[in-house]
């Protein structure tokens, strides 16, 4: 297949380190598929990669409108990348709404590849351009390099003998664009050809048409004079040798739960109710039956968590996944899991709130709910993932803590991590930490009575599962007597049990790693303390600030409750602490409360992740203040 990548004439090829690309079009234009294919191709070639899909919550919003714009952003690079890019270098705009919605995030001087059919009178009107105005013609894009390409017409020409219906032919236009982008970035077509061939196994005509459209796009780049001045680009792949896979955050969560169950020798049970943007965890696990995974699509969020508590009581590694509104519904049951002291992993993929809020947009606004959102005093561990790949490690940790400490654990992800993807060097089973469930062995009649709430030195009770002879016992949501677990309304006992439940969670700090500085010196002017999905933006911003000579460091919390033991010490080593959060300031409350310091908060509550430029600007402002 190398012939397809041979160019017929000499075109200048410029090497670049990294490029951020946005594929944007109408929801029906196939931009998610196009972006995914492009991402697969660069990943397999060995580039560093970070992707971020951005689509409306409506399945098919009115075609041609801003509300219907669907985008897929990715950054690929010769060096590690942690974000899809604060601004993109290239934008594919299949229609005028896509251009209008995204132009503000295109670099000055960036490239626009515009599908001209999407800029006809009707589309311009739907996108809300004033009558008679066409950005492709009126000079308003003079700060950018614009390539108007009649994508639809060229696709139709390429496929005129395909025998497909007009509608099917038009649907291939995204592959034309993909081919053109492959040409522009000197990328091979083979991977996508293979994918299309297997995807349309039962419809060879369709497979051939898509491949033909893609090749037409590729050759168009090659043959047209349009790109003569620009030439092509090459981003040399630099990834280390090894076996990789690309995962989204949601996939990584699902894999982690399955892996944790295998490692612990338990069966995995997921009780779940579909909710955006957490549903892929249920979907992914529903396909893992060959690993013995049991998924239960419950009638509601409450049944999702309560069925999991039942499974946990029976000795399974039990989990439930949800997003904000669902976590709200699960709170009563979480309290039950706290008092029962059974292991349970609750993955909350945060989205904009309150109420239905912004279902497809990320926010970090459930932290305080995760920490405190239960009636009575019901402490439980809270961990937060910071990247798609980290969703694996953090969820795995959540499962370990749940099983080894007999407690529900909330694992926070968000809509950004859930759908973003990055390459993951395939992990070896040996590198995963052991997970040791503490099952209570059977008891002989002559043995002393079994005490369900007797604890070890970490204050953890044992897991006495039904079917074990001699351990028959009754537990429930009523306050229990210390050790025996019998119902007790004794005042002193209630206070004691409240303290024990809190101390048990606090002692988890003994088993988790110390907090590390991710980047920068151990002491200095400014510490940027982050949690969750802002990792990439903070990491990139701090890297840049360090290059510019600022005294700054980055620490990112995985363990939010309990905190790592040395966090106070780290905070004390800096003159100021900056806490960027995609909420109005939640971690900052907890940090102030715990350490009695006055950090600086930086909020963004727009349903859009931070970008590195925003954080860098905040860092430099603050350091100038300190100086």
């Amino acid at each position, binding site marked *: 297949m190398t012939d397809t990548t041979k160019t017929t004439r000499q075109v200048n090829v410029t090497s670049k380190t990294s490029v951020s690309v946005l594929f944007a079009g109408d929801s029906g234009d196939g931009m998610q598929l196009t972006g995914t294919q492009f991402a697969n191709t660069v990943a397999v070639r060995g580039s560093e990669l970070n992707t971020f899909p951005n689509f409306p919550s409506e399945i098919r919003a009115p075609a041609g409108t801003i509300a219907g714009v669907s985008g897929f952003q990715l950054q690929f690079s010769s060096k590690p990348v942690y974000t899809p890019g604060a601004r993109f270098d290239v934008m594919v705009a299949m229609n005028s709404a896509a251009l209008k919605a995204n132009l503000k995030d295109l670099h000055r001087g960036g490239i626009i590849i515009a599908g001209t059919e999407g800029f006809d009178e009707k589309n311009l009107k739907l996108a809300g351009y004033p009558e008679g105005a066409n950005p492709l013609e009126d000079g308003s894009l003079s700060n950018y390099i614009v390539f108007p390409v009649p994508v639809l017409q060229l696709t139709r020409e390429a496929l005129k003998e395909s025998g497909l219906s007009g509608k099917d032919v038009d649907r291939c236009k995204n592959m034309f664009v993909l081919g053109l982008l492959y040409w522009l970035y000197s990328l091979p077509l083979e991977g996508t050809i293979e994918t299309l061939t297997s995807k349309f196994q039962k419809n060879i005509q369709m497979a051939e048409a898509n491949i033909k459209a893609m090749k037409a796009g590729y050759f168009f780049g090659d043959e047209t004079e349009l790109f003569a001045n620009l030439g092509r680009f090459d981003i040399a792949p630099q990834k280390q040798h090894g076996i990789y896979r690309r995962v989204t955050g949601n996939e990584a969560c699902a894999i982690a739960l399955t892996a944790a169950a295998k490692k612990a020798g338990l069966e995995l049970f997921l009780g779940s109710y579909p909710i955006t943007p957490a549903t892929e965890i249920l979907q992914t696990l529903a396909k*893992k039956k060959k690993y013995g995974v049991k998924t239960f699509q419950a009638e509601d969020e409450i049944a999702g968590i309560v069925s999991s508590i039942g499974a946990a009581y029976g000795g399974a590694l039990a989990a439930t996944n949800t997003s904000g509104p669902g976590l709200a519904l699960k709170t009563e049951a979480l309290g039950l899991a706290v008092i029962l002291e059974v292991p349970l992993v609750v993955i909350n993929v945060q989205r904009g709130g309150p109420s239905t809020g912004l279902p497809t947009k990320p926010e970090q606004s459930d932290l305080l709910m995760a920490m405190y959102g239960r009636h009575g005093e019901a402490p439980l561990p809270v961990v937060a993932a910071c990247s798609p790949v980290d969703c694996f490690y953090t969820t795995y940790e959540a499962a370990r803590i749940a099983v080894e400490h007999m407690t529900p654990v909330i694992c926070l992800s968000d809509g950004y991590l859930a759908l973003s993807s990055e390459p993951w060097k395939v992990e070896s089973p040996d590198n995963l930490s052991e997970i040791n469930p503490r099952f209570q062995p059977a008891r002989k009649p002559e043995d002393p009575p079994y005490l369900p709430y007797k604890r070890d030195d970490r204050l953890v009770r044992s897991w006495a599962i*039904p079917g074990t002879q*001699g351990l028959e016992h*009754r537990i*429930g949501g009523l306050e229990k007597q210390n050790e025996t677990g019998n119902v007790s309304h004794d005042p002193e006992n209630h206070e004691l049990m409240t303290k024990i439940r809190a101390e048990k969670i606090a002692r988890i700090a003994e088993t988790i790693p110390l907090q590390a500085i991710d980047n920068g010196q151990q002491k200095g002017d400014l510490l940027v303390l982050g949690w969750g999905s802002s990792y990439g933006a903070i990491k990139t911003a701090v890297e840049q600030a360090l290059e510019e000579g600022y005294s700054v460091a980055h620490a990112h919390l995985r363990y939010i409750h309990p905190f790592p033991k040395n966090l106070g010490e780290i905070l004390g080593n800096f003159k100021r602490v900056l806490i960027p959060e995609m909420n109005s300031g939640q971690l900052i409350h907890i940090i102030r409360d715990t350490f009695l310091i006055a950090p600086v908060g930086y909020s963004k509550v727009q349903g859009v992740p931070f970008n590195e430029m925003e954080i860098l600007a905040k860092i430099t402002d603050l350091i100038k203040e300190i100086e």
Partner: protein
Amino acid sequence: MTDKATTIIDRPVLTAKDFASDQEPKWCPGCGDHAVLQQLKNVMAELEVQPENVVFVSGIGCSSRLPYYMATYGVHGIHGRALPMATGLKVARPDLSVWVATGDGDALSIGGNHFIHTLRRNPDLNVVLFNNEIYGLTKGQYSPTSKIGLRTVTSPSGVIDQPFNTAALTIGSGGSFFARAFDRDGKFLRSLLKRAALHKGTSLVEIYQNCPIFNNAAFEAFATPDNKADHTVYLEQGKPLVFGKEKNKGIILDGFKPVVVDLDKEGLSTSDLWVHNESDINKASILAHFADAEFLPRPFGVFYAETRISYEDALTAQICDAQKNGHATLEELLKGDSSYEIK
């Protein structure tokens, strides 16, 4: 997870007493719950189950305290949620005998959604629904099965809500087993609980249970020997629907309409009557609506029993099918099916 074969060896035959926990029941004196508890212990002994293989799950309410009094495993959960908890447990552990103790408020009001969905899924659970037509634990508010007109602390002028018909709701939800019993009729209750236990799938046993404090004598029409004969009909598979003190009354079906006949006066024999067939869902539905008509006797016994695959068996079958070429390893899991090598 357990090896039943090894646990049964050398174990004495258990009696009802062996199923009593060390906790003293805290129900009011005269409460129907005591009688149900006793029958459950009897049934456990009759079924010859080992206590470690039995789990009682409950929600909130008077009847939901039951697990504390059984010497089996037990979980007292949260209001309305016993059924999903029991479902999760049964799916994770099909080897266990899982029972649910619930009430009319717990199962039909706050847990109504779980009730209908559990029944249609049909996990192998034995659900004992204590129906006293009142909220007892919160002291006497009307429940979703309270009769219209009942005056309670929250319905001082009388209940205006149409009550649920538990039998109709069960059958309408796709339930595979419905039976009705009465707390004071111990022997009959025991036989139904045993039938329910042996039914594969969700078995729903509604027990008319008297609350002597807040809704005393709600079921008096079916209780006193004088009333009982003329106001109840006991269902037996393949037997005609005969009732009355003299066993001289019967039910015939006029199209879909049940009609009470006097065998002596109308010169009919029992062979002219409706013959009970618990696998006939249409007849079961008609029986369910007997409760809506004053002139019809209240049916007790197994209304409906259908043989249908249980939820956990269907899921297990899918898993076995996915694993027919062997169990996948952790290594395969981590590698996935779309990995690529960078050389």
